[in-house]
């Protein structure tokens, strides 16, 4: 359908009328008269709420995919830190298995295990876990374990421990967390999975014993979770 010039002219006039009305309506003097009216106030509040929610809704929908991709990239980076690149050639984010972990007290009641495969064979697994009882809140960690149950690497993802004391669990602050590489339930007796103060194998920090103690215990529980599901995980 084509618009002839008369219709366009009519539309233009209509728009001009609306613009004139809006301009008059938005005059401060007119708004000053309207402001005390209850229906105006209700309308304004509803209008602001509507605009705000539409704006937020649209932004949320249009960025959801991008944010998810960014989070996946973050996760991938942490996975790469605890599983050496030579051990896998698959996309670990797509190769996952959910196992129940409620009795292991590692935060979630179900743990997503990312499976590293080399030429189709499982070489290592990796999962996030939590020490829920850190000195000042949960300590979130990620751990990579090879198919025989040896730790490939552990990293702390986030924590709220005391700066300067408990934060030595971060690899950026000290290499304490690297002491776990190569350990397994087989080459270290259960009693040794503790800080030295408790008769175990791992150092505590000067001024902070609870943070490393709870971290060691959570890593130990994570290994137990792996052992309980080892068959299922490495022979899918």
């Amino acid at each position, binding site marked *: 359908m084509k618009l002839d010039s008369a219709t366009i002219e009519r539309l233009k006039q209509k728009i001009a009328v609306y613009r004139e009305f809006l301009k008059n309506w938005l005059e401060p003097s007119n708004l000053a008269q309207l402001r005390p009216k209850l229906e105006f106030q209700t309308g304004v*509040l509803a209008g602001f709420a509507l605009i705000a929610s539409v704006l937020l809704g649209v932004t949320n929908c249009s*960025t959801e995919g991008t944010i998810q991709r*960014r989070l996946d990239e973050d996760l991938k980076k942490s996975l790469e830190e605890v599983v050496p690149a030579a051990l896998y050639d698959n996309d670990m984010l797509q190769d996952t298995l959910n196992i129940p972990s409620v009795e292991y007290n590692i935060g979630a009641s179900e743990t997503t295990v990312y499976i590293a495969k080399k030429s189709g064979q499982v070489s290592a697994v990796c999962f996030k876990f939590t020490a829920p009882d850190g000195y000042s809140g949960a300590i979130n960690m990620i751990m990579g374990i090879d198919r025989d149950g040896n730790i490939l690497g552990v990293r702390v993802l986030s924590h709220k421990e005391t700066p*300067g004391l408990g934060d030595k669990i971060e690899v950026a602050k000290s290499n304490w967390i690297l002491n776990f590489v190569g350990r397994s339930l087989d080459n270290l007796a259960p009693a040794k999975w503790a800080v030295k103060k408790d008769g175990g194998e791992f150092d505590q920090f000067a001024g902070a014993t609870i943070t490393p103690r709870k971290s060691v215990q959570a890593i130990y529980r994570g290994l137990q979770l792996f052992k309980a599901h080892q068959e299922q995980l490495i022979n899918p």
Partner: protein
Amino acid sequence: MFLSETYRKIAADGIWNNNIVFGQNLALCPLLAVTGTATNGLGMGLATLVVIIASNGLISVTRHLIPGEIRIPIFVLLIAALVTLVDILMNAWAHELYKVLGLFIALIVTNCALLGRAEAFASKQPVKHALWDGLMMGLGFTLVLVALGAAREISASGTLFANASLLLGESFRFLEVTVIPDYKGFLLMALPPGGFIMLAFLIVGKRLIDQKLATRKVSVTVLTPVIAEEES
């Protein structure tokens, strides 16, 4: 002078006389929470700066529409929506920066200074003044955050602007300095009580400077002894 009297007064108010922290004693919650290091202070300051300019502008534009009776819910709605927008957009498009600043962005909602500026200034002033006020208040707040962060960082760990390169990019690594080598550390200053203590020192410092300035003014204008006595 390239700035008119009004603009200069707004600037002086925002940065010094009526500074959000020193003058109004507002925004102490985000202030004490993030000023463990100068870098964190700077991050929080910049995030707040952006949001306060935007909220001042928005509220000034719509000031004739907003009836006095429902202004507070509308201000809160606008500020909360704005902060959430910045939060979502930064998470999507500036993800690396968001990982450093993310914590601070959500904290801006708890910053009553924004509501304070909306109520006391933006809702009564033309847009240009409101934007300028937002910029100056934001700058004043950033200065206090950086000063407090720096003072706490130096006394707590002997460093200054640690991890600044994470926030501002590699080219700002030169900011990271160790002020006191082989410092054993003073944990109290890194914890919240240290924030209160250091803030008290800064406020005392500001008052002393103000007092000095006031007495100097008195001596310059040669007032009668009676008034000078009142001043002191």
